[in-house]
């Protein structure tokens, strides 16, 4: 069913739809032809939408009870935990929800990297996704400052001080960001304001992300272009909605495990000590989801160099679609890339671990190796592998895996199953 064919049955529906075609949009969303071979790694888009909504809803309730003032913030969080009805539940959902959000977004990003979803014609979807990810990191960082514990305060001090590395204007920029000469009450106030604003910017970008997705349609595990609609596609509803719901429920079970049985395991115990500008914690560490970037920052002996590499490690992702020279999307048919993909995954995990360790001795050496490899992966490995690699034969369609190069179908089937 194509969008143009849709006309509401009722007269009122037609009247309204002629003026604002919301019903046409609804029909488009339910009929949207989706590849029938999407695996469970594709369910994280829906899961992420759930995460965003959960954070916004719990966040709005928390903001009703929270006080953004350096002298009162810590106490107001304890007030939420002790005196607000189910305040502990709302706060634990919100704080663990941030971690679950990042867990899901990392899976989503790595899925895109494995199956080449960032490649033509989906570059804009990828770039909007990265903007969402950047805003998520900013939002999460500012949210972590709000309880005004020791890690809040010192994390904010470390991250905002990064801007002082900018030559000439660095100091002025930092003072401007703080609204004071150190992290203080004005900083907390503006972080609260922006922490409330950014999720709505993210929501706007999510709409653009989905819109951009609906132009070419979904990529799929074998990474081929599909005729839509065809035997290879299913309507989004009920096929994808029910599958997303199933995956979301599994995700919620894990989420609940954290919220109800170890709500503080992902946080740092120092954040239950009220902020004290006179006492620096032994190790200042950000939340786990920012650790790889923190490791890159600290692996460079020069402050400005560290800041440049840290931001560079994110901005290089924006040109990923043009660094990858392979025409084949899915790693399923890219034996060499598949190899380097997993090395890259290990490298990022290693960097994450080094970010949690003190920047000295063996940790620093490993962090440096990890940082160098991170950039090599994008600058050397991806362009070169794309040129050298002999890719496996790609099937013509999902339903009938006819091979483009006339190779042995049984062999291709074997390769396909391997993945």
């Amino acid at each position, binding site marked *: 069913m194509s969008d143009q064919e849709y006309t509401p049955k009722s007269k009122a529906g037609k009247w309204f739809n002629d003026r604002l075609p919301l019903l046409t949009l609804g029909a488009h969303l339910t009929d949207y032809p989706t590849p029938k071979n999407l*695996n469970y790694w594709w369910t994280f888009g829906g899961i992420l939408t759930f995460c965003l909504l959960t954070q916004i809803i719990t966040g709005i309730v928390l903001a009703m009870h929270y006080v953004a003032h350096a002298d009162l913030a810590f106490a107001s969080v*304890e007030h939420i935990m002790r005196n607000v009805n189910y305040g*502990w539940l709302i706060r*634990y959902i919100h704080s663990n929800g941030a971690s679950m959000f990042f867990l899901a977004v990392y899976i989503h990003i790595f899925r895109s990297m494995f199956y080449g979803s960032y490649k033509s014609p989906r570059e804009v979807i990828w770039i909007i996704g990265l903007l969402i990810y950047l805003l998520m990191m900013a939002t999460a960082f500012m949210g972590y400052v709000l309880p005004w514990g020791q890690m809040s305060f010192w994390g904010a001090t470390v991250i905002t001080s990064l801007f002082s590395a900018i030559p000439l204007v660095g100091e002025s920029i930092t003072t401007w960001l703080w609204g004071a000469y150190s992290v203080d009450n004005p900083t907390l106030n503006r972080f609260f304001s922006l922490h409330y604003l950014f999720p709505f910017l993210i929501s706007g970008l999510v709409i653009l992300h989905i819109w951009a997705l609906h132009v070419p349609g979904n990529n799929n595990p074998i990474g081929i272009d599909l005729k839509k609609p065809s035997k290879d596609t299913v309507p989004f509803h009920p096929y994808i909605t029910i*599958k997303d*719901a199933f995956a979301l429920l599994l995700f919620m079970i894990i989420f609940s495990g954290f919220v109800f*049985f170890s709500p503080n395991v992902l946080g740092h115990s120092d954040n239950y000590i009220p902020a004290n500008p006179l006492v620096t914690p032994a190790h200042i560490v950000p939340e786990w989801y920012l650790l790889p970037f923190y490791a890159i920052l600290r692996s460079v002996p020069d402050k400005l160099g560290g800041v440049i590499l840290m931001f560079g490690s994110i901005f290089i992702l924006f040109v990923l679609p043009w660094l990858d020279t392979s025409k084949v999307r899915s790693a399923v048919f890219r034996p060499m890339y598949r190899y380097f993909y997993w090395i890259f995954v290990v490298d990022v*995990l290693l960097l994450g671990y080094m970010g949690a360790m003190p920047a000295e001795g063996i940790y620093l050496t490993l962090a440096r190796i990890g940082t160098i490899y991170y950039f090599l992966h994008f600058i050397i490995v991806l362009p070169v592998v794309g040129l050298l690699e002999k890719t496996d034969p790609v099937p013509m369609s*999902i339903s009938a895996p006819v091979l483009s190069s006339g190779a042995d179908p049984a062999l291709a089937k074997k390769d396909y199953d391997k*993945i």
Partner: protein
Amino acid sequence: MIRFNSKRLIIVILSTLIFIKPLFSAETIDPIKVNWSFKELTGKFDRASLQRGFQVYKEVCASCHSMQYLSYRNLGEPGGPEFTQEEVKAIAASVEIEDGPDSQGEMFTRQGKPSDKFKSPYPNVEASTAANGGAYPPDMSVLVKARPGGADYMYSVLMGYEEPPAGMKLDDGVYYNKYMIGQKIKMASPLSDGIVEYSDGTEATMDQMAKDVTTFLAWAAEPELEVRHKLGIKVIIYLILLTILVYLSMKKIWSRVDSEI
């Protein structure tokens, strides 16, 4: 297709963890592991231990450590020590609270009420620091959550006072404690056998008191723990049942299509 990928991911994560595990360096001695009743999934606090722990807190800790986020009424709430309303009133009435100003603009003192916050031993952090040799006795409301190792660490520090190793020089008012970060602590061993006389007749050994007061502190930091555990079990059972139903629906719906889910 999914099976292979998830297996790979798990292998990658596990091997990374195995590779990095030996790199852990021990800065402090691991705290003594205690089999707390509130540790398990359905864990609850030991009511009698909480009541005894409150007694230790009141008679020993409270002379230096505040607990400013708790109210006396909390002592009677479900999931806590569950003192009777009369007992809570009596506990609150045993302190004098400064209130006001009254209609004349004067501050006055009155008996404590259950709705009052726990009275702090010092008017402010500075006074508390000055009175304790320059070391601020931390507020105990969330102390168990504020230390890596939590309740185990709390208990270990209480039990960890020893003679310093030969050759270690300690300043006046500094004590050796093998579980403390840095092994030095400015608090003298607060507990000794029989320092408290338990009203329920339990023998007040040092170990018993350390366990009781740690249990009390764990509750003070997480007064919602029992409700949280109970609700968590219900939520997860509900989610599992719903997941099964959705899974069956999904199987049925997808059976119309020639494809694996």
